[in-house]
């Protein structure tokens, strides 16, 4: 797969105009929360960047992440960006199989040792390595071996980033995230089940142009995961007005009101879904009438039911709240009355101060 043509040539063969390319660079730049002045730099970097060797390892996964990235509306520029890296190993996409496939991985590692980018999707079972093997090599061994020579690792999808569905209770395979095994390499988490295609290509573009992007506490690039879905949700005005859909077939649901009470995890979920959207910007789950599941957050499978509203206490909370208010008001009033009585007593106890009263008797 070596000696692939550079991006401009790729564009020509795919019939993409330079104008379309620059438009893509501009949208990518804004998506990465960079200044518009950076557009030419992004374009230049994408045109001239030496295509790094990329090794893509798929472990305990559903191939949804790969499906997502290959479904990025071919032939789009995202697709080209992906083609513009030298994808030297990806067992779902590569033509080679068997020994030849593994030989390609070993060759790429040897040729680019210390420089290649490792992309991982899927969690790694550590309870028994036999749960998931490729060519007789356990996921754990393959990850350790391949990560050793990587410049950086991109954990694509919630499984690789945080363990995902494999990690969900009771976690029969002992599935863990990449970051729990590899601790000596920079790791960029691109969670999502699956991640948004343009976010994946955007992170790769950022890596090519400016290196590792700024990450949040959970290892996610801030440019794509800096804001919550709730903050950017087009249904937010309904939330602010207290207008909620109570069931999937009521007036609120039909009227497009906030899905908070139907279990929407938008307020606690950080992702670009509400702005970038899916299927080439057509829609996203909330727009389709379904609450956000929170798939970019760790352990989203185990955070209560998908249809249970956030932070609602069990029991009859309204009555509890009312009782708390009444009780608090009573205590407050009693306290205020005591204070008032104390002050009245003090005023009553006032003895007029005479200028000759100002010294102590001693």
């Amino acid at each position: 797969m070596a000696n692939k043509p550079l991006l401009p040539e790729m564009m020509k063969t795919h019939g993409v105009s330079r104008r379309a390319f620059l438009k893509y660079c501009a949208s990518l730049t804004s998506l990465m929360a960079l200044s518009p002045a950076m557009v030419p730099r992004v374009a230049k970097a994408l045109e001239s960047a030496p295509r790094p060797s990329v090794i893509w390892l798929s472990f305990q996964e559903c191939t949804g992440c790969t499906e997502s990235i290959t479904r990025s509306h071919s032939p789009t520029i995202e697709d080209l960006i992906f083609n513009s890296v030298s994808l030297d190993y990806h067992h779902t996409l590569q033509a080679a199989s068997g020994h030849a496939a593994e030989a390609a991985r070993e060759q790429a590692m040897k040729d680019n040792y210390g420089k290649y980018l490792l992309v991982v999707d899927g969690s790694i079972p550590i309870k028994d390595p036999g749960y998931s093997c490729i060519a007789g090599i356990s996921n754990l061994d393959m990850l350790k071996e391949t990560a050793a020579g990587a410049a950086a690792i991109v954990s694509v999808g919630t499984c690789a980033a945080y363990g995902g569905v494999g990690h969900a209770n009771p976690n029969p395979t002992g599935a863990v995230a990449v970051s729990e095994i590899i601790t000596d390499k920079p790791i960029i988490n691109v969670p999502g089940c699956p991640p948004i295609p343009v976010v994946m290509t955007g992170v790769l573009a950022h890596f090519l142009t400016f290196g590792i992007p700024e990450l949040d506490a959970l290892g996610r690039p801030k440019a794509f995961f800096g804001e919550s879905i709730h903050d950017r949700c087009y249904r937010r005005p309904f939330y602010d007005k207290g207008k909620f859909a109570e069931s999937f077939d009521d007036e609120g649901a039909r009227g497009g009101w906030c899905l908070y009470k139907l279990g929407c995890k938008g307020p606690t979920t950080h992702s670009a879904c509400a702005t970038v959207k899916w299927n080439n910007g057509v829609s996203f789950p909330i727009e389709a009438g379904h609450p956000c599941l929170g798939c970019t957050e760790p352990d989203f499978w185990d955070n209560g039911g998908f249809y249970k509203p956030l932070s609602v206490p069990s029991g009859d909370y309204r009555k509890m709240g009312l009782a708390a208010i009444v009780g608090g008001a009573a205590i407050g009033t009693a306290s205020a009355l005591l204070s008032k009585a104390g002050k009245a007593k003090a005023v009553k106890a006032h003895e007029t101060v005479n200028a000759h009263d100002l010294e102590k008797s001693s």
Partner: protein
Amino acid sequence: MTATLERGLNALREQIDAPVASFFTSCVSCGLCAEACLFYRETEDPQYTPIKKLDLMRRVWSREFTLLGRIGGWLGLTKPVTDADLTAWETLVYDSCTMCGRCTLVCPVGNDLTMMIRKMREGMSASGHGPVELIGAAQRHIDGNSAMGDLSKAIHAQVKNAVEAAGIPIEFDKPGVDYMVILSAQEIAEFPDVLSAMARIFKKADVTWTISNAAFEATNVGIQLGSRDIARTLVQRVVDAAESLGVKGVISPECGHAYQALRWEGPNLIGRAYNFEVIHIIELLDQLRAQGKLKTKGKNSRKLTFHDPCQINRRGGINKEPRRLMNMVAENFVETEDAGTMNWCCGGGGGVGANERAAPLRNIAFKRKKAQIDKVNPDAIVTMCAYCHHTLDNVLEEFNMEQEVLGLTELVAEYLDEDA
């Protein structure tokens, strides 16, 4: 009766009201008041942080007026305020606060710290923790007619001198005139020239005025000591005299806390509005200037700067008036840094100047003002408060500084256009 701890604590309880509760509740411990305080800035000693000076009052409030504080008190988690605590706070409340009001102005949550110091002093004085000099002044004033003792002979002598100097008669107890003039004891004893200055200016402006034998003293030690009862008695004397003479107004003289006492605290102390207006002498001179009744001729060619008295400018609102008058008579008027409402105190206000124990600290605190004066290096400093005048005279001497200090009324009278 004597001062006791119980009387002091009772006074604090009386002083604690809704504003005090909200101020203590809303304090965010940001420390901006420390940076605004003359005493903290010059010593960098954290005990001089204004809110810290109020800690005992805060403890009384917390223990007796808040639910959690009360529960804490029942469980023995907090200690009641003792006489020893009050003794420890004496120097903080009386020696290191001139009630200049800078902290109140910078407080981001709007706490009136100066008002709270004033309230805390009520408890301090009722429990016998007032400075002896202020107690003495209170006794002299209550028993006699002035904080300096009996000044009835002195005022008559000074008026006689002024009548001779100006060639204008000054009448005592004359009913129906425009204004009753009251004077600071400091003016009667140290700066009597203000009398002839007023006589000449008022003559030219057709303003009629008199001095009351019953109430000629403007100072009110009750405000500084922190005793409403004493302050009320002294304000009442002025009010009674003015109302019996039927004057249109009372002229508050060049004295900071006297203006504070009569103009702002007075009606609250006696519980009603006055039947006359209270006007500061500089306010009145500026009014006369605006009406064209005050005209000057010639200008002082020396380099002059102006010192703003805290109680008259920052806490009294008289800021532009003295500057308009200064520009009438000064050819070379320079302002110091922070001049105006954020001016730094001379260090003598709020009873600190009378307090001998506070003298070393007062000299340290003056260093800020000194540095600002040194920077503009004027020939003379003009002010509109006799006590600032007195304090500046003393500290300038202490620091071997050459500047002369002038009263603004006298300076204006010096350039009065007699022919206009």
